[in-house]
C-alpha cells in the first residue's frame, strides 16, 4: 500500500507525484501571473511571498521524494511503453527531477541576493546562506525564467506521453499513478 511494488506505485510515491505536480504547475502559473501585476494590484506583494514560500516547500518535497525513491521499490515500465519511449521517458523524468531542485535554488539565489531571507508562511525563515554576486544573480534570473517555461513544456510532454500510453496504447501508465494497487492486466481501461 505505502511502498511501490514491481508493477505498481505505492501511496507515498503517488502522493509525492501529485502534490509536486500541482505545486510545480501552480508555481509556474503563479510566476507568470505575478510578474504582470501592477503596483496597485492587491496581490502585488502577496503573490511573490506565496511564490517564494511554495518554492521552498517544493524543494523540500523534491528532496524528500528523492530520498523515498532511493528506499522504495522501482516499478518498471508497463509493456505498453516501447523501448525508445522508455529512453525518452527516463530522460524526461531525470530532467524534471533536476528542475525541481534547480528552479527553487535559482529562485532562492535571486531573492536572497541582497541578504534577506525567505519567509515560509510566517512559520520560519530560510536565511541567505550565500553571498551572491551580481553576475551569479543575473545568471540565476535567466535560468529561473527559461527553465520554468521549458519545464512546463516538459510537463506537457510527460503528461501527453502518459495519456498516450494509457488511451492509445491501452496501457495502465496513468492508472498506476492514481491507484496504489497491483491490478494486473484487468485495468487497461480508464475509469469513466
Amino acid at each position, binding site marked *: 500500500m505505502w511502498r511501490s511494488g514491481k508493477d505498481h506505485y505505492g501511496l507515498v510515491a503517488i502522493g509525492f507525484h501529485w502534490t509536486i505536480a500541482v505545486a510545480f504547475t501552480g508555481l509556474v502559473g503563479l510566476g507568470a501571473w505575478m510578474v504582470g501585476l*501592477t*503596483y*496597485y494590484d492587491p496581490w502585488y506583494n502577496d503573490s*511573490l511571498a506565496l511564490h517564494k514560500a511554495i518554492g521552498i516547500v517544493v524543494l523540500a518535497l523534491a528532496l524528500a521524494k528523492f530520498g523515498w525513491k532511493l528506499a522504495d521499490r522501482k516499478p518498471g515500465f508497463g509493456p505498453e511503453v516501447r523501448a525508445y519511449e522508455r529512453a525518452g521517458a527516463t530522460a524526461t523524468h531525470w530532467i524534471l527531477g533536476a528542475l525541481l531542485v534547480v528552479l527553487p535554488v535559482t529562485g532562492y539565489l*535571486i*531573492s536572497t541576493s*541582497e541578504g*534577506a531571507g525567505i519567509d515560509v508562511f510566517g512559520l520560519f525563515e530560510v536565511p541567505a546562506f550565500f553571498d551572491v554576486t*551580481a553576475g551569479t*544573480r543575473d545568471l540565476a534570473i535567466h535560468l529561473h525564467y527559461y527553465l520554468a517555461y521549458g519545464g512546463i513544456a516538459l510537463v506537457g510532454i510527460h503528461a501527453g506521453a502518459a495519456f498516450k500510453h494509457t488511451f492509445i496504447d491501452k496501457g495502465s501508465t496513468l492508472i498506476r499513478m492514481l491507484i496504489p494497487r497491483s491490478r494486473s492486466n484487468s485495468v487497461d481501461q480508464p475509469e469513466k
Partner: protein
Amino acid sequence: MIKRTLGAALAATVLAFSAPAADAADYTIDSGHSFVQFKISHIGVSWMIGTFETVSGSFTYDSEAGPEGQSITVEIDTASVDTNHAERDKHLRSADFLNVDEFPTATFVSSGYEGDAEGGVMTGDLTLHGVTKAIAIDVKKVGEGKDPWGGYRAGFEGAVTITRKDYGMGYNLGPSSESMELFLFIEGTRN
C-alpha cells in the same frame, strides 16, 4: 647671456600657465567615496532610498578660475541600483524602469555653472533611460584638502528633483511618486 635669460623666462611663463590649468584643477572621481542616491515617496507615507553603487567620471574645480573653470562629467552604472530589496532591484533594472540591458549607463555632463567657489547651480545634460534633458543641480562644496596618503581631494554635494515620466519611466507608483530627488555626493582626487 640674454638668450639664456629669455629662455628661462619663457620656460617659467609656460610652467606658470600650464600648471594650474592642467594639474591643479582636474580631478578624477573616487568611486569608493562617491554616491548617487535617490529618494522617492512610497505611496505618500514614507520615503524609499536607493543608491547607484558604481559611479565614475571626472571634474574640474578651480577656485580661482570663476564659473567658466568648473565642469563635471558623471557616469552611473544603472545596473548597480540598490534599494536593499532584491526583487525591487530586479524590477528597477527591468524594462518597467531603468531597462539596464538597453541603457547601461546614465550620464550627467555639465554645460555651465553659476556661483562661487563654495556653491551654486550646475547646469548640464542628464541622460537617463536613453533620454537627455537639461537639468540644474544645486551644488555645494563640502571640503577640500590634502588626504593622509599623499593626494589632494575635493568633495561636493548636489541635489536635483526630476520627474520620472520625463525620462520615459512613468510606471505608475502613485501620484506622490511621480517625481524624485537625486542626490550626488562626489569626491575626487586631484590628478
